């Protein structure tokens, strides 16, 4: 048993865990951060993706003890970071996933979001191909990926201040709900 000092979502946390525990186990079973999913638990699926020093990596194959001194971001950290930066509501990428219906069961979604978020940080207006490659290590058994790609494109377009490319099934314009931050106040109609 060793005492570890971990930086998770901006908080310095002291946790006790044996050397053979993975970061995923510490997040889920010591810190109660169950947003990072335990899928295959051996590197195949990407459901456990977290950001380590800003880079999407697999928590199921990272030893927790080797993550000391590194900045860990989990899905639980996205919205608070957005609010701290003065934003409203969820992170715009989370909002875009919601508006595009970019999930069915949702199991892949925390990992998808952390991979996609890092992509938008290094490449704010990515091509469809760049998105596909950046998300190649995040498997989704439900959606068929199309809405996920569209959600990333929607978030990128709105961050650039332009309208998203209309999807093939709705060629006449933007079929998506307005962003949360633009949503009308209570009582107002959309």
């Amino acid at each position, binding site marked *: 048993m060793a005492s570890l000092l971990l930086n998770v979502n901006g908080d310095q946390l002291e946790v006790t865990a*044996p*050397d*053979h*525990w*993975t970061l995923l186990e510490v997040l889920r079973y010591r810190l109660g951060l169950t947003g990072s999913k*335990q899928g295959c*638990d*051996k*590197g*195949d699926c*990407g459901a456990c*993706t977290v950001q380590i020093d800003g*880079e*999407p*990596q*697999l928590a199921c*194959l*990272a*030893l927790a*003890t*080797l993550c000391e001194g590194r900045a860990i971001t989990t899905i639980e950290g996205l919205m608070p970071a957005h609010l701290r930066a003065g934003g409203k509501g969820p992170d715009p990428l989370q909002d875009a996933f919601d508006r595009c219906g970019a999930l069915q069961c949702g199991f892949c979604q925390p990992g998808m979001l952390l*991979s996609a978020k890092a992509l938008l940080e290094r490449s704010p207006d990515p091509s469809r191909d760049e998105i596909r*490659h*950046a998300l*190649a*290590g995040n*498997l989704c058994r439900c959606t068929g990926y199309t809405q996920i790609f569209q959600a990333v494109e929607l978030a990128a377009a709105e961050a650039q201040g332009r309208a998203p490319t209309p999807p093939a099934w709705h060629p006449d314009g933007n079929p998506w709900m307005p962003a949360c931050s633009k949503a009308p106040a209570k009582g107002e109609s959309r």
Partner: protein
Amino acid sequence: MLRLPKTRVAKPTTVAQAVALLVEHGEVAMPIAGGTDLLPNMKHGLFEPEVLVALGGIKELQRFELQTDGTLILGAGVSLDRIAADERVQRTAPALAQAAGLVAGPQLRRMGTLGGNVMLDTRCQWYNQTHFWRQALGYCLKKDGTVCHVVAGGKKCVAAASNDTAPTLMTLQATLVFEGRSGRREVAIDDLWHTDGIHNKKLGTDEILVEVRVPPRATGHRGAYGKLRERGSIDYPMLGVAARLDVGRDGAVEGADLVLVALQARPVRVRRAAELLIGVPSSGDNFAEAVAAVAEAAYAQAHPMPNIPGDHEWRREMVPVYVARTLHAAATGTGPVHHV
């Protein structure tokens, strides 16, 4: 949920400390770099080291230089992601950059290192399974058992070398620098391999791979990597083809090399590639004819076995296809050869 067996993690900050730890603990210690090969294997009960010597905190393993004479020095701890994205590697050793960029998926390439890729354990569909699964099967020669499920009655393990960068480093005539209890030694990567799938590397348990040195390439160096795999996004190779062509001023091939991986326990050089290609113009009908002859030679020499996933007869039919495509990609600078 796959638990790791109990282990202790040591965090040396120099190669000397890491070697001392390996010497102190002997057989029960193993180095760990990115952990993307070793940790899944430990979760499957294939390795149970009492001590893991973590290499991630060692600065000496992060060297990444293109020297003025063209020698490329790659520390064993450099991530595959950095190698794939590096303009110097893409320009001067394209096959290596392409292979590194096709290992696993993006998260794994950020975690996985070049050293770990060279040192990758061999793979087999009867071996890379949970303990429960292997127990139900009755185990196999490579771990805990006495029979081979690939070669009936076989007394030698034929698990496949599956590391994508290894064949490219062989075509680049790379040297490996190891440090162990008796100091440093340099080994040509060609001489690293055994043909035994249980341990396919000639390596002491006290030795650490420090760096990979790629000697200066010929002026007209061209290279490419071709990879056949089930899902283009993540899977290990079902076949890997590394090609090198040195093209002279007159456009004729002056040097050539071709190495295949994911067939047997070590990467396999196609013996006749060089003799069939040398002196041939590197484009046009003559080149296409020579490439077709090399593809035939590769087909004759390559015998995929049912050791890794994918129908082995189909994998064999793909050998000439990928050899030809990869040689053309090398000649035209259009690699990698990959289906997505």
